[in-house]
């Protein structure tokens, strides 16, 4: 018998599926090479811009996903939910860019400003998606955990984490989609001298290059979805299937 702690994450159908999926990752970089040549740009500068922007988004996503998960499992039921969920609903409707002047005043045109705006953009879809996963939780499952007397770390590991994963993943897909948009807009508005926002602003007067830039962007997003999110989503939904 295998130890209970050994977990299986079977998100790919076969080694070939994994290989082909990873193969897709080269597509945006090949595109980047051709694009840099067409636009007469230094390839390394364009690559650096993509990397810097992506890192900003990754950092913001990690912070937002952690906060969203903690908030969701804390506030999803009982009196806390009755009081807090309407407040969170109002907060998520608050336009993120309205905070931009305050953030810029406090931290200037910096990574902190961009990442803060991104966190506020990304956190809500993830939070509400996890809440919806928890609300759809089967009562029987909860009672089985209660009768087993699962508490603390065991409750988190064997119960709470698995039931929230589908919500975390579907919320992440929406959150990161919104995040890309907010990232470029924030980089342009605050006038950061690094990242993709600066690139789009520099070529704003050239519709051909802008269109190609947008196309490259779409390829990147499609690749990440195909590579990571969709297999994860399929796997997580399969895990809670009875």
């Amino acid at each position, binding site marked *: 018998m295998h*130890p209970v702690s050994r977990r299986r994450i079977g998100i790919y159908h076969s080694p070939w599926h994994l290989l082909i999926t990873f193969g897709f990752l080269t597509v945006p970089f090949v595109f980047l090479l051709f694009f840099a040549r067409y636009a007469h740009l230094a390839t390394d500068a364009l690559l650096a811009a993509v990397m810097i922007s992506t890192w900003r988004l990754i950092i913001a996503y990690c912070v937002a996903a952690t906060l969203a998960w903690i908030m969701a499992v804390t506030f999803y039921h009982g009196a806390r939910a009755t009081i807090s969920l309407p407040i969170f609903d109002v907060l998520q409707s608050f336009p993120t860019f309205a905070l931009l002047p305050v953030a810029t005043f406090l931290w200037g045109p910096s990574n902190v400003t961009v990442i803060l705006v991104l966190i506020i953009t990304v956190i809500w879809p993830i939070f509400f998606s996890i809440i919806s996963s928890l609300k759809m939780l089967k009562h029987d499952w909860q009672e089985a955990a209660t009768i087993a007397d699962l508490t603390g770390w065991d409750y988190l590991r*064997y119960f709470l984490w698995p*039931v929230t994963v589908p919500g975390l993943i579907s919320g992440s897909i929406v959150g990161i989609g919104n995040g890309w948009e907010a990232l470029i807009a924030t980089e342009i508005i605050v006038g950061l001298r690094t990242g993709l926002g600066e690139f789009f602003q520099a070529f704003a007067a050239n519709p051909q290059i802008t269109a190609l830039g947008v196309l490259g962007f779409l390829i990147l997003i499609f690749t990440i979805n195909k590579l990571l999110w969709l297999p994860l989503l399929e796997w997580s939904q399969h895990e809670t299937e009875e």
Partner: protein
Amino acid sequence: MKNIAIELQGVSKHYTITNGWTPGLAAAQSTRVDVFENITLNIRQGEIFVLLGPSGCGKSTLLRIMCGLESLSQGNVNLGPGLNHRDISFVFQQFALLPWLTIEENVSLGLIARHVPEQKRKRIVTKELHQFGLNKFAHAYPRALSGGMRQRVGIARALATNPKIIFMDEPFSELDSFTADELRRELLLIWQKRRPTIILVTHLIQEALTLADRIAVLTPRPTHIESIITNPLPRPRNRRAKKFFALEDRLEAMIKP
């Protein structure tokens, strides 16, 4: 109290239904619904006690109150001397296996919560799975099993912690009659070996007579215990015996409105 597994003193349960206010159509209304009033009951250690009654009479609610899954409005539920909430387990009507865990992980759940060392946990789980012929499915997920096998896992999970009291909420009602019969036989064999107290809810008179030492007959509106009958039939019980039919008729007459 010495021989008592669980004691209910004047247990009542009611809840309030609140209908919202719709402008010009309906005023807000609160209605109190009494599920049952003033139920007093003693269940002995090592017996199979069956709560028998028609659907909707509150027998499942009573069972869930006894094991602490549901709150009571009035009264007391006391476990017998030396027993606590870790001495109980539950078999669910719809199995309630966690679909993201393998069969062995599902059976291990209570042992993990009790911090049983891994080696010992493995031994216990293997023994329980072996008892139900489920060894080769240890690494399968619940979705791969039939209803009967899932309920076997449910019972194995309930037994793994070696509980003193096992609550069973219509455990065979989701199964076909052949599988249900087979599982009843397996349950009786296990009970004869380990002698836990089993408190089982059913609406099937034959099932109650096959399994029970004592049967509490519940009748609805308002729900109350009509009678507690001691089952005099010797084990193994012959369902074609005259005495069996006579008891069946008696219980049916009690339950019929």
